[in-house]
C-alpha cells in the first residue's frame, strides 16, 4: 500500500510541476480508450434528448406558429433593408481593401466528454494530434474564448476552460491599442464568473464593456473576445479594480467548439531559463 501511495504522490508531484508544459502518457492512452466509450454515449444521449425535446416542443407549436407568421411579415421588410445595407457594406469593404478571411484556421470539434471529477471543468473534444491539434492551442466558440488544449491523444484532446482558477490569460478592457486597461483574467469559485485582476484603479471602467485577449500571455492570440464586465469594485490610485466578467462563450452549455490552429511564438531563451516564479512563491 505504501508503494502505491508513494507512486500516486510522485505522479501528482510531477503533474503539479509540469502542469503547463508536458503531458502524461497515462492521460494520452486513457483518452484514446475512453474515446470508444464516450463518443457513442454522447451520440446516443444527444439523440435521445433531441427526441424528447421535439415532443415537448409540439405543445407550444400552435401559439408559436401564429407569432411566427406575424414575424415573417416583419422580417420581409427587414430583409429588403438589410440587402441594401449589405450591398453598401460590400462596396465600402472593397474600397477599404479589408480582408474577409479569418486570421487563423479553425478546426471544428465536438465535445464528447466532460471532466469525470466534479471538482474541475475540463472537456474532451473529438479532435487529436492526427487532426493537427497541439498542446496549448486556443479553443473558441462563436461567442468567444473557451480555453486551451492541455493534453492531446491521437484521436482526442483535453481542453482546460478559462473558468479554471489556474488559467490566467492576458486581457484588455476594450480593444488593444485603444485602451490601456490591461490585466489578467482567471477563474473564480463560480463557474459562470471570471475575475480580472491588476487593472489600475486610476483607469475608468464601466459595466458592460467587452474584454479581449492581448496576446501577451504567450498562449492566446490577441483580439479574442473573453466576455463582458458585470461588476466593478472600484480601486483607488494605489489599489487595482476588482472586475468580474461573464464569459461570452456559454461554457456550461457548449457542444461544438473550434480549435484555433495557432501556435504561440517561442519564448525567448532567457525567459525559458527562468525558474517557475509562481511555484517558488508557494
Amino acid at each position, binding site marked *: 500500500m505504501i508503494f502505491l501511495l508513494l507512486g500516486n504522490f510522485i505522479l501528482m508531484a510531477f503533474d503539479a510541476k509540469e502542469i503547463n508544459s508536458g503531458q502524461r502518457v497515462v492521460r494520452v492512452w486513457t483518452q484514446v480508450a475512453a474515446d470508444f466509450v464516450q463518443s457513442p454515449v454522447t451520440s446516443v444521449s444527444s439523440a435521445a434528448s433531441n427526441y424528447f425535446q421535439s415532443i415537448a416542443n409540439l405543445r407550444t407549436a400552435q401559439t408559436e406558429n401564429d407569432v411566427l407568421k406575424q414575424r415573417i411579415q416583419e422580417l420581409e421588410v427587414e430583409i429588403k433593408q438589410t440587402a441594401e445595407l449589405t450591398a453598401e457594406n460590400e462596396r465600402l469593404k472593397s474600397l477599404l481593401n479589408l480582408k474577409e478571411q479569418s486570421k487563423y484556421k479553425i478546426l471544428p470539434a465536438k465535445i464528447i*466528454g466532460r471532466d469525470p471529477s466534479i471538482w474541475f471543468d475540463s472537456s474532451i473534444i473529438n479532435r487529436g494530434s492526427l487532426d493537427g491539434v497541439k498542446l496549448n492551442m486556443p479553443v473558441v466558440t462563436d461567442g468567444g474564448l473557451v480555453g486551451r488544449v492541455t493534453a492531446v491523444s491521437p484521436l482526442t484532446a483535453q481542453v482546460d476552460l478559462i473558468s479554471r482558477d489556474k488559467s490566467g490569460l492576458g486581457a484588455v478592457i476594450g480593444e488593444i491599442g485603444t485602451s490601456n486597461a490591461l490585466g489578467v483574467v482567471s477563474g473564480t469559485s463560480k463557474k459562470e464568473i471570471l475575475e480580472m485582476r491588476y487593472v489600475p484603479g486610476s483607469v475608468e471602467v464601466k459595466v458592460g464593456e467587452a474584454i479581449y485577449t492581448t496576446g501577451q500571455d504567450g498562449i492566446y492570440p490577441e483580439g479574442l473576445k473573453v466576455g463582458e464586465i458585470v461588476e466593478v469594485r472600484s480601486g483607488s490610485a494605489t489599489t487595482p479594480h476588482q472586475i468580474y466578467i461573464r464569459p461570452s462563450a456559454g461554457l456550461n452549455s457548449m457542444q461544438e467548439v473550434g480549435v484555433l490552429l495557432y501556435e504561440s511564438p517561442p519564448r525567448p531563451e532567457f525567459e525559458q531559463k527562468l525558474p517557475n516564479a509562481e511555484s517558488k512563491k508557494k
Partner: protein
Amino acid sequence: MEQVKLTIALVIAILLQWTLRNVAEPLAFIDFPLIIIVYAALQRNAIRAIIFGTIAGIAVDALSGGLLGANGFSKTLIAYAVSEVARRVYLDNLLLRIPVIAGACLLDDLIYYGTHRLLGQEPSAQVLEIIAYTLIGTTIAGTVVYLMMERFVAESPMRRKRDMFPQRRQTRRRNPIRLSK
C-alpha cells in the same frame, strides 16, 4: 467468481464516471468507483481493495483536469482504511454500510481537495457545495448499488458470518451426577 464479478463492476463504474456527466451534470456528484472500492474493502480483502482504489483513481484522474494521481492516492487510502475497519467491526448489515460509504465519501473529498491545495492546484469550485452534494449523491447511489451487489455479486451471508465469527470448539460436559456414582 466473486473476484471477476467485482472487477466487472469496477470497470462499469469507471465507464459510468467517464460518461455520465456528459449525459446529465448532476450525475457527476455520484462517485461510482468509490462505491465499488468501498464494497470491495468491506469484503475484508485489503490488497484487492487498495489495488482497485489505485486503478480506479488513476483512470478517473487521466480524464480529469485535476492532478494525475490525486484520486488514486485518496482512494487507495480509503480502501485500506475501510478494509481495516471491516476486519475489526462486523459491517455486513446494509444499515451499517450506509454511514461507512458516507464517511468514505467525505474523507475521499477532503483528501482529494487537500492534496490539490498542498500542491498549489486549488480546484475552481465551491468546496462545501461540492462536498455536500457528493456526499448525498454517493450515499444514496451507494445504498442502491449495495442492495444490487448483495443480490448478484456477494457470496452467501451465512458463509461470510462464519468467516467473521468462527465457531468455537465446544467441549462436551460430563454429567456431574454420573461422575459421583
